[in-house]
């Protein structure tokens, strides 16, 4: 059964110093997600959702506890080791898209493949852009694309490496309702088809409800939703 667990947090805590003393942002969080599952973490602003996501993806290091991602203990890896693991096993979708403004849609999607040293980067990126319906706009720069289109490029970039886990931080937060709904459809559709594990951070209960499992984050602690 353990084999199926692709992401696991054990007693995960994050503290920072503040003018008022030590502040616990994430407190003893433990949970696990199985391969192919979709999980949502919901909560109000400042509940610690984004910090938890950063810890799970290895973008930040915990004060205590550990994270196992695709069988590897992130806390035993250095910064470069975590980066390599991300390049191979992790995809990201952000609220503010985070495309490299100097690169075209195609080049943005090729980026993680090139970082991983893949020789078929261009073909795979074109296919990924085709799957998100942007075949015609591969040569456009981010500023020439609408918000919804930019997020599709970001989704294509996230799925193109066939990640074990895809982290999404408020993926519809910067979009209008209609576009947001289309992006959500695309995300879940691709997730189902590619068998990826999806970990979603949002305060949108409707979006969270489409996931297999929902946790609620409150003052740094996690409860089953």
């Amino acid at each position, binding site marked *: 059964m353990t084999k199926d667990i692709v992401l696991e947090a054990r007693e995960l805590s994050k503290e920072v110093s503040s003018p008022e003393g030590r502040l616990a942002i994430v407190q003893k969080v433990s949970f696990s997600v199985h391969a192919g599952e979709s999980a949502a973490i919901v909560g109000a602003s400042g509940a610690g959702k984004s910090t938890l996501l950063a810890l799970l993806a290895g973008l*930040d290091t915990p004060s205590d506890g550990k994270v196992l991602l695709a069988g590897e203990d992130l806390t035993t890896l250095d910064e470069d080791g975590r980066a390599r693991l*991300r390049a191979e096993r992790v995809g*990201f979708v952000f609220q503010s898209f985070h495309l490299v403004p*100097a690169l075209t849609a195609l080049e943005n999607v090729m980026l993680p493949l090139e970082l991983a040293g893949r020789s078929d980067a261009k073909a795979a990126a074109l296919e990924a852009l085709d799957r998100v319906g942007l075949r015609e706009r591969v040569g456009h720069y981010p500023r020439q694309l609408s918000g919804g289109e930019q997020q599709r490029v970001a989704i294509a970039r996230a799925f193109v490496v066939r990640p074990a886990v895809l982290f999404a931080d408020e993926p519809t937060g910067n979009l209008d309702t209609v576009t947001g709904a289309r992006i959500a459809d695309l995300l879940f559709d691709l997730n189902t088809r590619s068998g990826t594990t999806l970990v979603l951070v949002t305060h949108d209960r409707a979006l969270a409800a489409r996931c297999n499992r929902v946790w609620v984050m409150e003052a740094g602690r996690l409860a089953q939703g």
Partner: protein
Amino acid sequence: MLRRSAMLGVRLLGREWKSGELGILLIALIVAVGALTGVGFLVNRISQSVALQANEVLAADLRLESGAAAPEEAYITEAKNRGLRTARSTSVLSVVFRDERNQLANVRAVSEEYPLRGTVGVANAAFGAPVAVGRGPARGEVWPDSKLLAALDVAVGDTLSVGAGTFRVTRVLITRPDQGGGFGELAPSMLMHADDLPSTRLLQPGSRATHAVLFAGERGAVVRFKAWLDKNKKRGQRLLDVSEASPQIQNAIDRAGRFLSLASLVAVLLCAIAIAMAARRYVQRHLDSVALLKTVGATRGFTLSMSLVQLCIIAIVAALIGSGVGYLAQEWLLRALEGLLRANLPPPDWLPLGLGFLTAIALLAGFALPPLLQLSRVPAIRVLRRDMEPPPPVVWLAFGPAIAAVVFLVWWVVRDARLFAGFIGGLAVFTAILALAGWAMVRLAGSTRGSVGVSWRYGIANLSRRRAESVVQIVAFGLGIMVLLLLAVVRNDLLTDWRRSLPENLPNFFFINIPPDERMAFFDFLDERGASRSRALPMIRARLTQLNGQPIEKIQFVDPRGEGYSRRDQNITWQADLGDDNQIVAGRWWTPAEHGRPLVSISDEYQQGLGLKVGDRMTFDIAGEVIEAEVASVRKIKWDSFQPNFFVVFPPGLLDELAGTWMTSAYFKPGDGRVISDLVRRFPSVSVFDLDDLLSQVRSVVDKAAMAVQSVFVFTLFAGLVVLLAAVQASRDERRYESAMLRTLGASRGTVARGIVAEFSALGLLSGLLAATGASIAGYFLAKQILQVSYSFDPLLWLFGLLGGGALVAASGWLATRSVLKQPPASTLRSG
């Protein structure tokens, strides 16, 4: 990994170039390199021209002289193999006849190729206006000088006999390029063709002749040949280059060189500031991209090597374009200033191009690499939290490379320990003072916020909030304004001083061998004809025989000059007053009570050459009498005063009985040729030495140096403005966002604009105040210690510093941030 990071680096760079992202960094670097190489090319060409012109004093680049026999043909063969041009010149003292009249003259036989540098000035009558020709007389002809013509009462067309030969006078020799500034040749002189020399039979075993071989060619080849000659020349052969040819010209070159190094240093400094600011902005704008790269799997090494590749490409592109800009800029400048030049400047060599590349790399490594290292340390989590910055850098890593780059470039440009120490020390102190003062002002300004209007409050609030940035900008502006002020101050002082040191009525004739009993009549003759006369000094020849009781033949001199001084007879004098063109550098000048005591005062060249110190004993043989004297003082002589001056001076009352002859110098209006002819006839034993040509050579060198100084000033001013703009650009993104915020909250464009102007005016005023203080102090130090000119305090400096600084910074700030106000607030807030 390196290949992938390089490829991605190149691609990103290409995209950024297209989208204008790189503009500021690249332009700052191009202008920096352009300014520096522009100065470099210009200085290079002018110093080549100065050196060439100075070489005219030798009529060559190198001159090998020998007393005994003519230098071997092997030297000429070797020189020709190395692509150098050569010529021969032999001078011999002989009596020249015209019927029953005769006169001792210096007969100089020159080969076809003479002169290799400069021209021979000839006329059709004695003391006439010279016409330049590039050769000596043809076979069968002679060109006697005016003094010889006057003494023998001959004219062009007559014939003269020398030894066994008879020659026709075809021209009158007015100037030769190698007549020199010394007093080696007191007799009248005459040029003839070298091939005619054997027929005169003047050269017999034991005859007193000086043989010279002249060499000229491309600079590098000359330098290498000089090294070869130094090694291979025989004892008794003397090698001369321009540094030994004429102390007057050397003085002018030294001063010009020092000032030009100083001026190019200013450009180096301004470049560094501009690069640092542009690099900071570049890094700020790339934090997000690098964080994203790390999120999708790039390691720190990957992002770092990507940045390094980009940096190298930027350095190469900037160095290429910048050097091109620099070349064109100096070409344009030279064209604009063409009227000032006597001849076309020689083309520059490629050294400044190397300087351009090295500068671009050193500046980027020193000032852009540290922030780029920081960039590679930006945490990946920045993709989720925009407030995450890279961890603060280690202090030595942040400032070490910058300091190393400045030290390296400054040393490379200056190559003088004292100037280097003064500059680096001054820079460090001034930077620290500026930083402290800037910090204090920002704090002070913060406390006045409550009492000023909304625009000023906004402006001052900006200063306080961006405290670190404000201090950096005050330091940058302050340094920029200071160097500009300093340049203006030193330039004026230097030019004024030069003009003063070479006044129009500088003595242009020297008179030597004035018999003591004729001297009053001679001075009266000069005074009656309106000549302005300088001091008259007695003169006698002396030979140095012992130093501190040790025979001179047994002493080995380290300095080759010492060897020369110890062998040659020396002209000496005695005088009561020091004269304002002499300065005591060791010991003290004698008091009237010490007149008649066995003391001696020597020049610093003489002291260094012989390795003497105050208190040493020197023994001279003066007209058969042995005199031992103690070194009482060492003098620094200002040779370009063109007054009679001597290496060795005794107090009055010691040698008066021995008096040989007198000498003086005087100024005659150009064209007083007849007066000189009369004088030569009336006082036949007096030797006349015409300095007009030498003087115009020195004036021309000074003119060129002044032109270089002025053009360097233009370059530096331009570089300074770019620094100011780069500084303003650095805070542009933030300003755009703030302006949008303020306008959204209801502020008018005018309010925001006034706030910006207020902020930059405050920055400029304080920078200007500090800069004026710094420039006054540094100017005083430079004028007194380095350039050795007098310094006059100028209150205008403060006015220019304060008002100029305030206005310049406010205007640049306004120009650079103006577009911030043009954008509608909504678009800025959306994209920010």
